[in-house]
């Protein structure tokens, strides 16, 4: 297992390097927007570009970029957005909001989703299952921003149960109960989809597992239905469900552009798309690294997790 993990990590580093190199070259190959700004001395922008090294060959630019990152962990400063601010610092400054909203959301959504899924599976083809399945379809089909608008309008604006936007850290600490309550509309908006998705997966997997022969054997051994479901059925069903849950946890860092916008959450949701639209190379590269690393790393974590959930799955074992 250790050898396998090390091998995977080395492969991850290589893959990360290849992806980063490709992204750097490709984004630099895009033509720069021509400088034409009414009433401004266009030479200022040209000189600034020259100073930023835009005129150097791409290979030289990449070498300088790698040198700064590897020796100083310096991802540069914002050039077109968050100008002069450290790219990495901006990311780290905005990340907590995104993480905390998404974390609350999935921490609440996972047990609810699993509960609904288990209950629907146990009540398969009964009215309870039909009600849950219909609701699941509804919540999966409707995009989260629709909930967000509805939640904001009815619960925040009309009923006044929650504030319309989350407060700033000036008045409310990020890890406080008041902030948690303020985030509830966003948490709900993000959570509905997760609940529905998990409930559907859990129901589907559990329904299949519950009909397995070993379940019959477990019951004949004298286990109650609850014991058999919890100890045997759920464990097998989790082989499929757990990666989804891990995926949700990984997704917490990506943020939701629209939800963050609606509830005025200063998270990272819009950073990546803005960096591409505004052609901010440093932000683009830092974010590409960050998300690629998280994606690759989570792949390893997920693969390894299979072995823990189901001992029959051996990682890197030779035949």
């Amino acid at each position, binding site marked *: 297992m250790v050898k396998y993990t090390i091998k995977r990590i080395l492969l991850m580093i290589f893959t990360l390097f290849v992806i980063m190199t490709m992204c750097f070259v490709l984004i630099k190959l895009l033509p720069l927007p021509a400088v034409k700004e009414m009433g*401004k001395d266009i*030479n200022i922008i*040209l000189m600034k570009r020259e100073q930023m090294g835009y005129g150097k060959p791409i290979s030289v630019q990449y070498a300088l970029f790698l040198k700064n990152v590897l020796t100083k962990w310096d991802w540069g*400063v914002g050039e077109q*957005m968050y100008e002069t601010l450290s790219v990495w610092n901006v990311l780290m400054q*905005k990340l907590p909001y995104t993480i905390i909203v998404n974390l609350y959301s999935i921490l609440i959504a996972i047990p609810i989703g699993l509960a609904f899924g288990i209950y629907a599976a146990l009540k398969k083809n009964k009215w309870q299952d039909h009600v849950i399945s219909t609701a699941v379809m509804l919540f999966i089909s409707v995009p989260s921003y629709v909930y967000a608008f509805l939640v*904001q309008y009815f619960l925040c604006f009309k009923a006044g149960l929650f504030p319309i*936007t989350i407060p700033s850290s000036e008045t409310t600490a990020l890890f406080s109960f008041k902030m948690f309550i303020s985030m509830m509309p966003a948490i709900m908006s993000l959570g509905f989809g997760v609940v529905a998705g998990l409930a559907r997966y859990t129901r589907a997997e559990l329904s299949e597992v519950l009909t397995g022969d070993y379940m019959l054997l477990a019951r004949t051994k004298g286990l109650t239905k609850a014991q058999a479901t919890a100890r045997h059925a759920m464990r097998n069903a989790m082989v499929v469900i757990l990666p989804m849950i891990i995926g949700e946890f990984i997704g917490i860092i990506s943020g939701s552009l629209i939800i963050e*916008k609606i509830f005025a959450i200063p998270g990272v949701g819009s950073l990546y798309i803005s960096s591409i639209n505004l052609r901010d190379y440093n932000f683009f590269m830092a974010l590409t690294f960050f998300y690629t690393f998280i994606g690759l790393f989570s792949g390893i974590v997920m693969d390894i997790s299979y072995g823990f959930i189901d001992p029959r799955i051996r990682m890197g074992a030779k035949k």
Partner: protein
Amino acid sequence: MKRMIAVFLALVMVFSMFALAACDTENPNPNPNENTETQPGNEPSEEPSENPSEEPGNEPETPAEDGVFNGVAGKDYSDEASYTFLDFIGGTTGLNWNPHSWETSDDSYVLGYISTALYDFVLNEDLSGYTIIPEAAADLPVDVTADYVGQYGIKEGESAKAWKIALNPLVTWSDGTKINAETYVYSMKQLLDPLAINRRADSFYSGEFEIVNAKAYFYNGKVSYSLAGDAAASALENDNLYLDLGFWGIVGAPDAEGNPAPQYVKVTDETLYRDEAVAEGEAEDWVSAKYLYDNYLAAGAPYESYAADYLYISQSLAPVTWDEVGIKALDEYTLLLVTANPIAEPAFYVPYNLSSPWLVKQDLYESCQTWYDADGNVVEPNAENAVSITNTYCTTVDNSVSFGPYDLTYYELDKQLTFTRNENWYGYSDGKHVGQYQTDKISCQVISEHKTALQAFLNGEVDSIGLDSTDLETYASSDRLIYEPQSYTTKISFNTNKEKLEAIGNNAVILTVKEFRQAFSLAIDREKFCAEYTAAHEPGYGLLNYMYCYNPFTGELYRDSEYAKKAIVDLYDIEYGDGKAYGDLDEAYDSITGYDPAKATELMNVAAQKATEDGLWDGSSDIILDFRVYSSDEIYVKMFNFFNDSIKAVCVGTPFEGKVSLQMTEDPDYYNTMYSGNATIIFTTWGGASMSPFTLLYQCYCDAADGSGNQMEVGFETEKVSVTINVSGQSITASLQDWAHWCNGDAVDAIDSKVGKFADHTYPERCEVFATLENTYLESFVTAPIYYRNTAALLTRKLEYATQDYIQIVGYGGLRYATYNYNDDEWASVKSGISY
């Protein structure tokens, strides 16, 4: 024991109170800004005492500033209650309020609160306009050009080039550090630092207010590029002609060795660059500047007429030392500014150009700098091998400092800005700001979603909200609705280049017939269009809207002038006077709607006949006019349908019936498509420079042949349109383009030799000339103004602006003059019940 401690503490408290009172007596004014210019019987003086805090016995009074609005009579501006303005700004990608590199309006929003300009514009006494006041300056600028003859290139007899500015010694940084003339000089030096390449450096070397040698110092021998214009031919001979590769969209495209293409490349350069828009192996997959010039822009080439927009010359100014730059500290509180050219109407334009501060606090500024060498390594400040400097000044609370009425006390990236009173700001105690700044605190959220902001406004969490067209349906009748005009006019621009239109096909060449274009214009019901498809815009008929002020001293608006009205009345052939439909010019002007379907139909008949006779149309085939729009969003589709229906309606009963239609094409780059002559009809919008109306005609409407390419009416050759105008009793004939040049302040020998410079004439004379030119442009019907842009907003019931009439430059008076109906506590208890 407890009782003893309690008694002891009580004694300590009592003693402390006496001690505090004693301190107050000894130093009645710990703030050195206070109690100045307040000696009984003294008029407000611009020569404050050396040490104002040592003038006991001066009872604070509040002498009102002459000619300036001094607040609402009877209003208590200094009560103990707290007043917070709840604001918001839209989505940001970080804020940078460094006065040397700020970029967006949100950046300047911060600067506006935390800084004080040398001069400012405030409401005048009767709220009918604005007036200029010295703020960080102690007095208006004094022309001392004669004292500097022989220096800074000033010649004998010249004037309006050197300005002595007495500074207000009460102005300090928020920590009490003084701001003097050296601060201004140091800040300017940093602004123009060649290594820093500050975005705002050009504020003082381009445009009318150019500080002598500022550009040369900033460029430090580097090459700069400017449009070649008439010098293109000689530049070609001297191998100094450059092509802007933006012409082909390949700036930054790699050459064979991976080097990115610069923006400007000599037209003789044969280096090939890969055009990613063309598949490898196909024609023009690799192109050079020479190829593009020879095949597209050279004389006789298909895009020759666009050469003026994309051909540049390079130049390099000889480097100068800092001592040669036209800014000096004459003494501690006197600044000298020397401009490269005389400033026209200096009483207005010198203060106007000095109404944006460039000050930075030296110790903080330098602590925010990082110096780099050529390889990107950090080096010591002022190191010889340093090639660039970055600066984080004014990007966080810690590296920000105020010298304005408010201080930034909290800033959370993309979330919140909080400003509180800068208690060290001299204006709170100098007696010259009576009736101003009732606001104690400004709490500004970042809310990028409009619906969220609207709900926050209705909940009393935001004090003002801009409305979109959907909102206006709900709040159109609200008594809290305010309109704010913008300087922009939106028009339909027609391509009238016959060759290009023939290449486009679909009988688009019909647009070369003036009567057709005129009919198109008259077919548009502008009032209906504005009401149904825009938020708050109003029908527009001229190139310039109601924002343009032609006399900066009186604030008179161009559009309200007799000449400007006549230009539009003549455009629509409306007669007035005795025995006519309208009694006078105003009545005739007010009657204009721009919509006359009957006349449009008549003109369509004429156009059809002309087009057939001239062989432009065969009389039976369909005429499909491509209408390019930015996107295919619902609103654009609705607008397009409106125009399409309008044009079809006026063709009924003419040979064009059932033949003419518009075709919508989504084109996010439609401006450039029109530049290249490949668009037929587009929406265009120009505005800005609302204090310089007479420059707009040249800069936006007449420069296709020799300017920066802002003219959208492709095919309309202003250099070939002859206009005769009577100026000062002399009838002068010149091309429309020459006239526009003249109005722009440029030298035009044909006109200058007869009547002198444009700036030598009175404002009414200038207005008359300009109105004639505007009418000439509009009479060609190469463009049809549709609406003047406005924004609509709802204002909270918590506060009132000083005036309900929008005033040029100062708007409704802003937060400076805002007064509150509710303090914070009162508002908290009533806000949920407020309706709009």
